[in-house]
């Protein structure tokens, strides 16, 4: 396939409509590093996305948020700074979890049906007279044993109720174990993805690294910042920072000659855990004097107000 033919595949590729052989051919071509086709594909994908977003929006936002919030509730531990919901939302969450359906309770244990059926069963082959006599006798016997049967029945019923209560308790504990495992799985996946992000920035051909040194409030803290201008990305990896206090966040700063401190993003630290967080790369075209981390109000601030925990002077060169 020549270049013109490959170019003709770009639109279909952007729309996800290529047949397998064409897709393989185009992928091979892009892997060879054709920057022109790569750029055109990116531009066509944006046009295709605009096409999708031109549809009349469906009024779905609130319902979607409820779905997402239910998943967040399952995946975020209550104490995690990540679940920074405001108080009314926490209330909403509790109300929702109270609405979760509980295990259906049988109106009558199944054993009772058999018991009733046994009582209903009557012999069919006996001559009716004998049957009448037998029935009268049976009635007497039944009357005699009725009290005992009722007591026995009550005992079985209590046992069953006890068993149901035990099973419900077990189910509850299994379900909380399952949500704890899910929580853990989502947190691990997110942590893994952050690490992959750090890795990809470190692997960039123009990757830069910088070590941040501890200051008074946390003498054991340290951090590494990796950044890449071509990837328009920066990532901080920090350890030894005290856990973020409630209502606060760590904020990263680039201090430039032109604008002084420029906010680069907020992140949170947990006890004994290393933090990896995406931050904004330094503003391009400005001279960087220093990088720093301060403790600020949870939403972040435009100019630093809190104590500085980490900093790295940037050597002039």
């Amino acid at each position, binding site marked *: 396939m020549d270049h013109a033919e490959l170019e*003709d595949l770009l*639109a*279909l590729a952007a*729309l*996800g*409509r*290529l047949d397998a052989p*064409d897709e393989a051919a185009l992928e091979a071509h892009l892997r060879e590093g054709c920057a022109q086709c790569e750029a055109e594909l*990116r*531009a*066509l*994908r*944006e*046009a*295709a*996305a*605009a*096409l*999708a*977003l*031109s*549809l*009349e*929006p*469906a*009024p*779905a*936002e609130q319902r*979607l*948020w409820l*779905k*997402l919030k239910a*998943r*967040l509730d399952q995946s*975020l531990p209550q104490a*995690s*700074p*990540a679940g*920074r*919901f405001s108080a009314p939302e926490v209330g909403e969450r509790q109300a929702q979890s109270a609405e979760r359906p509980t295990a259906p309770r049988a109106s009558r244990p199944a054993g009772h049906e058999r018991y009733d059926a046994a009582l209903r069963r009557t012999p069919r082959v006996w001559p009716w007279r004998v049957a009448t006599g037998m029935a009268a006798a049976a009635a007497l016997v039944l009357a005699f044993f009725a009290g005992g049967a009722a007591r026995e029945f009550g005992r079985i019923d209590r046992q069953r109720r006890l068993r149901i209560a035990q099973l419900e308790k077990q189910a509850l504990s299994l379900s909380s174990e399952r949500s704890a495992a899910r929580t853990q799985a*989502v947190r691990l996946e*997110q942590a893994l*993805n*952050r690490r*992959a*992000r750090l890795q*990809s920035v470190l692997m960039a051909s123009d990757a830069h690294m910088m070590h941040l040194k501890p200051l008074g409030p946390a003498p054991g803290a340290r951090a590494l910042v990796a950044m890449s201008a*071509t*990837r*328009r*990305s920066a990532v901080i990896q920090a350890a030894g920072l005290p856990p973020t206090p409630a209502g606060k966040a760590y904020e990263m700063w680039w201090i430039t000659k032109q604008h002084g401190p420029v906010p680069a*993003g*907020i*992140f*949170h630290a947990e006890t004994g855990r290393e933090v990896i*967080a*995406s931050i*904004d790369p330094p503003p391009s075209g400005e001279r960087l004097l220093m990088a720093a981390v301060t403790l600020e109000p949870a*939403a*972040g601030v435009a100019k630093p107000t809190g104590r500085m925990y980490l900093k790295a002077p940037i050597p002039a060169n």
Partner: protein
Amino acid sequence: MVRADTERKPDAKLVAAMANGDAHALKALNARYGASLSALAFRFLADQADAEEVVADVLWQAWREAALYDPARGSVAAWLVAMSRSRAIDRFRAIRARRLAPGIGEPNPEATPDPADELDSAERGRIVKHALETLDPKQRELLELAYFSDLSQTEIAARLALPLGTVKTRMRAALLKLRQMLSGLPE
């Protein structure tokens, strides 16, 4: 409530905040794109509940994989749209396989714009619609057929009774023209 500072953040910053575990950023991203993505998924599924399930899955995937989002490879909108479209098609195929497939491409009679939608997305929709209207009707038909249906390139060519080569060239010209008309649109 999405806080005002979160609301004003550009898409890429919201995704970075999500990667750092900020649930408010997820809420803001949903406010920005949830409704439009649902409309997109609805075009394939013709069922609002199915469409919203798809979009919830997409936004949840974005939450989990926020740290992997690479701005160099395209805008957040393109990332979300690609995920929504591919998940909607998968779901449509699964439904069809269960012989419960509804028709595709039916307009949604109940889809009315939500006043809570951001002006930004309404404005963007208006601009794109205008751009689509100025396209040659044949180009527009081709684009819409390719984008909002589950047809392969060969099936599209057969449907329009055009040689495959013509479909490819026309499609590229149409999408390039759309891109050109939208080049001033903020991401």
